[in-house]
C-alpha cells in the first residue's frame, strides 16, 4: 500500500500574494468614503437664495371686472316681507324664501323682543361652555315634538347644518349615494366627509338601484370590508335646484332591500308639504322612524336663522360631540330661537295655512304656463319655481344676460324676481341658467298673480325681440 503523504502542502507563492492583495483591497474599500451612484445635486445656499428671489406668486385674488353681474347687489331697505323696497323701488317680493309669511308677523316679533330684553343678543359661547340657554332646549323639544321624533338638535346657521351632519357619520371609506341635483351645502358636507361619493341621475330610481347592485357585487368579493363600510343615501325632500320632490316610498323600499341608511334634507319642504307642514314624510304618509336623519333649515318657512336635525336619539345624540358646526361654534342667538318657537306655535295653531299656500302655488304655476320662450321648472305645489329659457341663446353667458334683462324689466314694473345664483366652477352638476321666481308667500293676494304672468310675458317678448335684433 502506498503511504499517503500527510504533510500539508505549502500553498504556492502566487496564491499567498493574491490573497494578500485581496485583503489589502478589502481594507481599503472598508475605509474609503461611500459615494452615491447618481450624483444628487444638493443646492448650495447661493442657489437657494436665487430661487427664493426669483419665485413670484400669483396675486392673492384675480381682479374682478367692475361689471361682474354678482358685484352689484340689490340693496333692500326695510324689512324683506311680501312688499319689498329694492334699490329704492317698491316691488312685490317674489324672491325671498318667506313661504309662510312669518317674517313680519307681530307675534313672532314680540316673542323676539321679549327674549331680547331677557337675554341680550349674543350667547358668547359654544353649546358646551355656558352657551346652552333654556330657549335652545325648549326649541329642540318643540321641534322634536312637532316632527314626532325622539330628539332634535339645533345649529346656528342653515348651511352648516347638513354640512356638519354628514361628516359626523360618514367617514373615509364609507359610501354615499347622492342625487345629482343635491344642493351646494350637501356637496360641501360630502367633501368634508372624504367618503366615496356615487352620483345617481336625478330622481332616477332605476339608476340608483343599478349602483346599489354594483355595490352589492363588490361586497361579495370582500365581505370583511363590507361588514364595516357604512352606506348612506342623501336626498332632498324638495330639491332647490329643480323644484321637484324625491320618490320617498321607493327609496324606503331600496333602503330595506340593500341595507342603506337615508338622510333627508328638508329645507324647502319643511313647513310646506304635508297636511300639518311636517314635510315630505307626512306628504307620503311614511313612518318617520324609517328615515334615519332629517335635516332642515329654519331660514325658509320658520323665518328665523339656523337649522336643525331630528331623528332618533341613537342617531342625533352623536352629533352633540362630533358635529363640528355644533361643538366649535357659538350657539344660536336666543332671540332667533324664541322667534322660531313662536313660528312653530303659529304653524301648530293654524294648519290651514299650508292648504292656502299650496292652492296659491298651483294657481301661479298655471298662470305662468304658456309664456313663449320660457318654461316653468318645478312641481305644481312647490313654492319655489324656476323659469328657464326654452332654447338657449348660444352660450351660458348670453343666457344669463337675457335673463338679467327679464329680471330688470320685471323689477322696473314692480315685481321683484331674482336670478338663481350658482358658483360655476364649484358645482358638481351645474344647473342651466334660470330665474328663481314664484316664491309664493301666503299673504299674497290672488289679484297679483295675473299681472305677474302678464308682465313676465311682455318682458320676455321684449327681451327676446331686442336680443335677436342686436345679434
Amino acid at each position, binding site marked *: 500500500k502506498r503511504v499517503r503523504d500527510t504533510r500539508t502542502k505549502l500553498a504556492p507563492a502566487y496564491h499567498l500574494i493574491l490573497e494578500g492583495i485581496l485583503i489589502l483591497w478589502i481594507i481599503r474599500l472598508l475605509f474609503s468614503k461611500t459615494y452615491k451612484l447618481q450624483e444628487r445635486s444638493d*443646492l448650495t445656499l447661493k442657489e437657494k437664495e436665487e430661487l427664493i428671489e426669483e419665485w413670484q406668486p400669483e396675486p*392673492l385674488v384675480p381682479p374682478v371686472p367692475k361689471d361682474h353681474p354678482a358685484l352689484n347687489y340689490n340693496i333692500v331697505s326695510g324689512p324683506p316681507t311680501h312688499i319689498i323696497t329694492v334699490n329704492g323701488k317698491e316691488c312685490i317680493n317674489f324672491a325671498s324664501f318667506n313661504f309662510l309669511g312669518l317674517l313680519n308677523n307681530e307675534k313672532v316679533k314680540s316673542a323676539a323682543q321679549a327674549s331680547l330684553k331677557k337675554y341680550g343678543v349674543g350667547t358668547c359661547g359654544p353649546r358646551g361652555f355656558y352657551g346652552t340657554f333654556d330657549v335652545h332646549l325648549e326649541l329642540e323639544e318643540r321641534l322634536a315634538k312637532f316632527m314626532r321624533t325622539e330628539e332634535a338638535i339645533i345649529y346656528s346657521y*342653515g348651511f352648516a347644518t347638513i354640512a356638519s351632519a354628514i361628516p359626523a357619520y360618514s367617514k373615509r371609506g364609507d359610501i354615499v349615494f347622492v342625487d345629482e341635483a343635491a344642493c351646494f351645502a350637501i356637496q360641501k358636507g360630502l367633501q368634508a366627509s372624504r367618503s366615496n361619493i356615487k352620483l345617481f341621475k336625478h330622481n332616477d330610481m332605476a339608476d340608483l338601484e343599478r349602483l346599489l347592485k354594483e355595490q352589492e357585487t363588490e361586497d361579495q368579493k370582500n365581505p370583511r370590508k363590507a361588514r364595516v363600510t357604512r352606506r348612506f343615501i342623501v336626498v332632498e325632500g324638495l330639491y332647490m335646484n329643480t323644484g321637484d320632490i324625491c320618490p320617498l316610498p321607493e327609496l324606503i323600499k331600496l333602503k330595506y332591500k340593500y341595507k342603506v341608511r337615508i338622510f333627508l334634507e328638508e329645507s324647502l319642504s319643511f313647513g310646506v308639504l304635508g297636511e300639518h307642514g311636517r314635510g315630505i314624510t307626512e306628504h307620503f304618509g311614511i313612518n318617520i322612524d324609517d328615515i334615519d336623519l332629517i335635516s332642515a333649515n329654519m331660514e325658509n318657512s320658520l323665518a328665523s336663522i339656523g337649522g336643525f336635525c331630528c331623528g332618533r336619539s341613537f342617531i342625533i345624540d352623536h352629533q352633540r360631540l362630533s358635529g363640528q*358646526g355644533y361643538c366649535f361654534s357659538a350657539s344660536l342667538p336666543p332671540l332667533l330661537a324664541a322667534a322660531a318657537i313662536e313660528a312653530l306655535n303659529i304653524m301648530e295653531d293654524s294648519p290651514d295655512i299650508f292648504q292656502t299656500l299650496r292652492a296659491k302655488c298651483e294657481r301661479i304655476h298655471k298662470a305662468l304656463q304658456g309664456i313663449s320662450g320660457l318654461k316653468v321648472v318645478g312641481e305644481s305645489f312647490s313654492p319655489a319655481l324656476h323659469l328657464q329659457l326654452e332654447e338657449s341663446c348660444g352660450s351660458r353667458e348670453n343666457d344669463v344676460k337675457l335673463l338679467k334683462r327679464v329680471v330688470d324689466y320685471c323689477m322696473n314694473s314692480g315685481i321683484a324676481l*331674482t336670478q338663481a*345664483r350658482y358658483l360655476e366652477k364649484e358645482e358638481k352638476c351645474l344647473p342651466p341658467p334660470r330665474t328663481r321666481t314664484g316664491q309664493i308667500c301666503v299673504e299674497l293676494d290672488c289679484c297679483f298673480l295675473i299681472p305677474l304672468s302678464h308682465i313676465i310675458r311682455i318682458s320676455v317678448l321684449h327681451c327676446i325681440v331686442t336680443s335677436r335684433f342686436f345679434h
Partner: protein
Amino acid sequence: MYCLLQVLLQKNGVSNGTLYKKTFIEHFEQAPMYVAVFTFVGFAVGTIFGYLRDFMRAWGLEKRNIAAEREQQKDFVPLYQDFENFYTRNLYLRIRDNWNRPICSVPGPQFDLMERVTDDYNWTFRFTGRTIKNVINMGSYNYLGFAETDVNALKTVTIELEKYGTGVCSTRQEMGTLDKHVELEKLVATFLGVEDAMVFGMGFATNSMNIPALVGKGCLILSDELNHTSLVLGARLSGATIRIFKHNNMQSLEKLLRDAIVYGQPRTHRAWRKIIILVEGIYSMEGSIVRLPEIVSLKNKYKAYLYLDEAHSIGAVGATGRGVVEYFGMSPDDVDVLMGTFTKSFGAAGGYIAGKKGLVDFLRTHSHSAVYATSMCPAVAEQIIRAMKCLMGLDGTTQGLQRVRQLEKNTRYFRRKLHEMGFIIYGNDDSPVVPLLLYMPGKIGAFARRMLEKNIGVVVVGFPATPITESRARFCVSAAHTREMLDTVLNALDELGDFLHLKYSRYSKSSHPELYEESRLELED
C-alpha cells in the same frame, strides 16, 4: 424639566430686537415629573374601569343605558364602532355634568344656572326647576361686557328688530343684502382701518367657506399647530396642500417657507401658485398671542400671504381694541386677509373678512356664503353697529375706551395674582384668556364641581381639545367683572388650589414685579 420663561430677544435668530415695540412675555412652564406620572396613572385607572364596565354591560350584569339601534335595522352595518366611543362612554361620561350647563339669563359677568341633577350617574339629567342665581361667569367670551340687557344700550337694537323682523330668507347675492349690511360693512372697514369689509352670518362658516374661495389646488397652506377647527376645515375643503408648523415657532415656519419655495410642489417640483400662512390672533386654548411682527417680516421676505383670524383678539387687545395689529403697533396693510368674529367681544354673532377692495370684491362674487347661505339677521347687525360705535367713541361717550382699559387692568391683575399664588398659567401676560393647568383627569371634575358649589362657573377642558396630559381650566376675563368679583374668584381658587394641590409652579413670583421684569434671562431650547 426646566422652566421656559420666554423673554423675546435673541429668539428665532431675530437679532433685531426693535421688531417688538414692547416686551413680549409668554409662559409655558412645565410641571414636575411626578405630575405627568400621576396623570397617566389616572387615565390608566379610568381605562381599566372602563373595560370592566363594558364587560359587565355586555354580560348583562349592569343596566345598559345607551340608546340602541332599531329592531328593524339591526342587520345594517353598525353606525358607530364600539371602540370609537370608548372614551366618550367611560371617561367623558363620568364628568359630563360639567359641560353643556344650561343658563337662563344674559351671559354677563354673573348669570343664573338651571339646577340639574342626575339620578343615574350622568346618563340622563333632570331639571329640579330651581335656578342657581348670580353665579360668577368665568366661562363666557364676554371680553368687553357687551352682553347686557340694559334698556338704553339695546334701544337701537329693539327698534331695528321691530322694523326688520328676525329673518332674511335670502342669500347675499339674491335678495338678502339689506341696507343694514352695507352700513355694517362700511363701519367695520373704518374700525379696522382697511379699504373694505364683508360680513357673514356665522363665524365658523366665515373660515370654512372663504378659505376655499381664496386658495385651491396647487397652492400651499402653512397652518399653525393649534389652529381652530374652522381654519382646519376651510384648509381641507380648499384642496390645497397643508403643512403644519410648530406653535408660534418662527424657525419652523421659516424652514417650511424656504423648503417650499426651493423644492416646489412634491413630485412635480412645479412652483407653488401661492403660499398662505394661517394664524390666529389669540389662541383660545393656550392664551398665547401670535408673533405678528416676525411673521410679517417673514411673509414680506418670502412673498407669502397672511390670513389672520382674530376671533378672540378683536376688541380684546390693543390700546383701542383694534386687535393684535394695533397691539404690536403695526399697520393693517401688513396683513393680507383680516378675519374676525363678532361673537366674542361684540356680544352678537357672525364673522367678517376685511382687507383691500380687490379682495373683498372677489369674495362678494366668489364666496360660497354669498351665493348659498343666508345673510345676517338685521337685529344682530345693529347690535354690532352699536357696540362698534361705542368702541370707536362715535356715540359721544368714552365708554368704549373705558371698557378696553378695564379689560386690560382686569387681565393683568388676574394673571399676576394667579402667578403669585403658584398656579401654572399658560399664555401671554396681556391675553384675557387664562388657562390654568390641572393635568390629572380626576381633578377636572372635582375642580369644576367645587367651583360651582362656591357659586363660580368655570370651563374645564380635557382631551381631545387639549393634549392628553394637559387638561386645564380656562378663565375668560371680562371688562364687566368688578374687582370684588375677581377677588371672590381668586380667594376661591386659592382655597381650592390648596385643597386639590394644584399649585405646581416652582416659580411663584413675589409681589414686587419690578425686580424681575427688568432682568433678561437666557433662554434654553
